[in-house]
């Protein structure tokens, strides 16, 4: 599959899950390195320089978020955070600390592999350099500031366009409410009160989605943020 195998560091303290992940990822052509604690992971990151890290937040010796924080001070290696369900706060914290994506336990094999591929792909292309982004019938032209669906241009307000552009620049990545608000309304906006973002999103969906109850282009990660659909 891959000529030069991409290496994945799996940081997970459960032996059984580690075994399953190792089997699964090796079968898909990745070189898998395992670490069962944060301290082991730290030395492996510096010695092996993995291409991607799969980080479980519940580690025995250190808070996973802290490990991510330390890592982001010097490295941009893509990180996918693995967390238990129902822990939006952890997810939001991980994304705000620079995680590239998260996946909730338990997950299926195809889901995990798809996420890994998407993160790898996003990191290999230089963000923001492309002029257009298209998914399904949705097209955004970053140069001309135009959004169209099925070739029909959509009239968006200035703020609405900037929200769509921000999300479309990083397709597949979940952008947290506070990230979007900071980028659109500036660092002094009240990120706790995200009503203004929610209202704008409601209006955007009415304009671009055929059924806003089942959005196809801008997806909701409830309690966390929004994500642009990928091809």
């Amino acid at each position, binding site marked *: 599959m891959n000529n030069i195998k991409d290496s994945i560091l799996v940081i997970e303290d459960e032996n059984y899950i580690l075994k399953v992940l190792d089997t699964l990822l090796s079968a898909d052509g990745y070189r898998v390195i395992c670490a069962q604690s944060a301290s082991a992971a730290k030395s492996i990151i510096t010695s092996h320089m993995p291409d991607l890290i799969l980080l479980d937040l519940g580690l025995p010796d250190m808070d996973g978020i802290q490990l991510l924080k330390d890592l982001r001070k010097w490295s941009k290696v893509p990180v996918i955070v693995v967390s238990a*369900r*129902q822990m*939006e*706060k952890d997810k939001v914290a991980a994304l705000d600390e620079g995680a590239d994506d998260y996946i909730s336990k*338990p997950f299926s094999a195809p889901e995990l592999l798809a996420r890994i591929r998407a993160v790898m792909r996003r990191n290999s292309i230089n963000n923001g350099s492309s002029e257009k982004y298209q998914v399904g019938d949705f097209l955004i032209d970053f140069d001309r500031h135009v959004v169209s669906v099925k070739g029909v241009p959509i009239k968006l307000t200035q703020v609405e366009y900037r929200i769509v552009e921000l999300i479309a620049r990083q397709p597949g990545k979940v952008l947290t409410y506070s990230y979007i608000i900071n980028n659109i309304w500036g660092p002094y906006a009240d990120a706790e*009160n*995200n*009503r203004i973002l*929610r*209202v704008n*999103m*409601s209006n955007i969906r009415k304009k671009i989605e055929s059924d*806003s*109850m*089942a*959005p196809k282009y801008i997806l*909701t990660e*409830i*309690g966390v943020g929004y994500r642009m659909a990928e091809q």
Partner: protein
Amino acid sequence: MKTRFFAKNKRTFFLIFFFSGFIISALTVRLMGSMGSGHIIILRLCSLCLFFLSVRQAYLIYKDLVDERNVNREEIHREKLISQLSESLLQASGIDELYTLTLKSIYSVVDCPSAIFVSDGSGGFTRIKSYPEGLLLYPPDEEILHCLKEGIRTGRGTASFKEKALTCYPVKAEEKVLAAVGLLAGPDTILSASRQKTVESLLLRAGVALERFRLAEEQQQAMMEKELEHMRSDFLRTISHDLRTPLTGIIGACSALEQGDLNLTESAKKDLVSDIGAEAQWLLRMVENLLSVTRVGAEKPILNISEQPIEEVLAEVLEKTRTRFPSVQLRIHQPDDFLMVPMDATLIVQVLMNLIDNSVKYAGSDKPIDLSVKDNADTVQFSIKDQGIGLSEKKLRTLFEPSAQRSGDSSHGMGLGLSLCKSIITAHDGTISGENNPEGGAEFTITLPKGSDL
């Protein structure tokens, strides 16, 4: 020294002075003829002096009587206050009211502001209440701790910490210190002994009442614990039963696949694997429900409340329903206006999914399920309506109770699901109810407060 001696035996000296004056003046009259005028004058002066002393003595006696009457009056007033307090303490509905009553009566007796403190159990203390309310006291410290610890009077006018502004009185019941009351007298006044006595007897009454409340509370706590224990074992029985059913299926399927000599066809194998997957999915939902129970079932529910647009919540429910029950038709009705409601989104979605789950399983109909949202003035109302067979009388009665009596029930998990829904909605300060729709089918209604600042 001399005056005190005279003051002590006022009546005796009055008599001595009066009679000796009387005798001397009588003698003077008798001896008028036989004595020189110089002697007579001396005797007259003597008797006058004695009369004057006896009048002074009489005045002192009179003053004493007045004082006594005043003391009596004050005592009567005090008795009245104390009995008034005792009476109202009996009627107090809670400890808080009891504190207020005590401080108020102290204020009316000694006319100085006060506050009540209790030990916080870790070497410090907390201020519970003051009267007049919102009263700012000097930063009080050691005198209160000492009073709480030793059960003696401390602070101003006492032996310990007399430089402090507060005078602290312990509130005791059977030698146990329950609280301390700090009195803030004016800068120059020190309470008179009789007033101190009043305060002390007021606090004695308060102590008794406080102890009574504490005992009642303890008793109630014990009863609640017993109830909780009962619920817990009920709950565990339900869960073990509910967990065992899918596990039996999974283990059975696995063992069938492991045995090579069964000669299963490829499609049979595939069926077994997908059965395992379905049962495992069910177990996962069950575990998620259990996790939520631990979050909302605790004394202080851990909710992650934030304002959520109704349309996003409904979209999430719709998507989940489509993946979980591809053949089920869920119709969504919502107000046109953009609407946000404070909630823990994951938990509310879980509640709605549990209700849809129930409708799919128990309605016995493949007609559409309706999920509607209505914007009331202060609340938002969700209702889930199916067109199935409805709820039986028996089910209606115990709808939201975790029931262990359903062993043998073919479709597992309903008991926990609905009781969890109730806990989640209650933790949101909302309401949930279930009934039969007059047009047929079951209908569950949830309301959530809009302006809630949980």
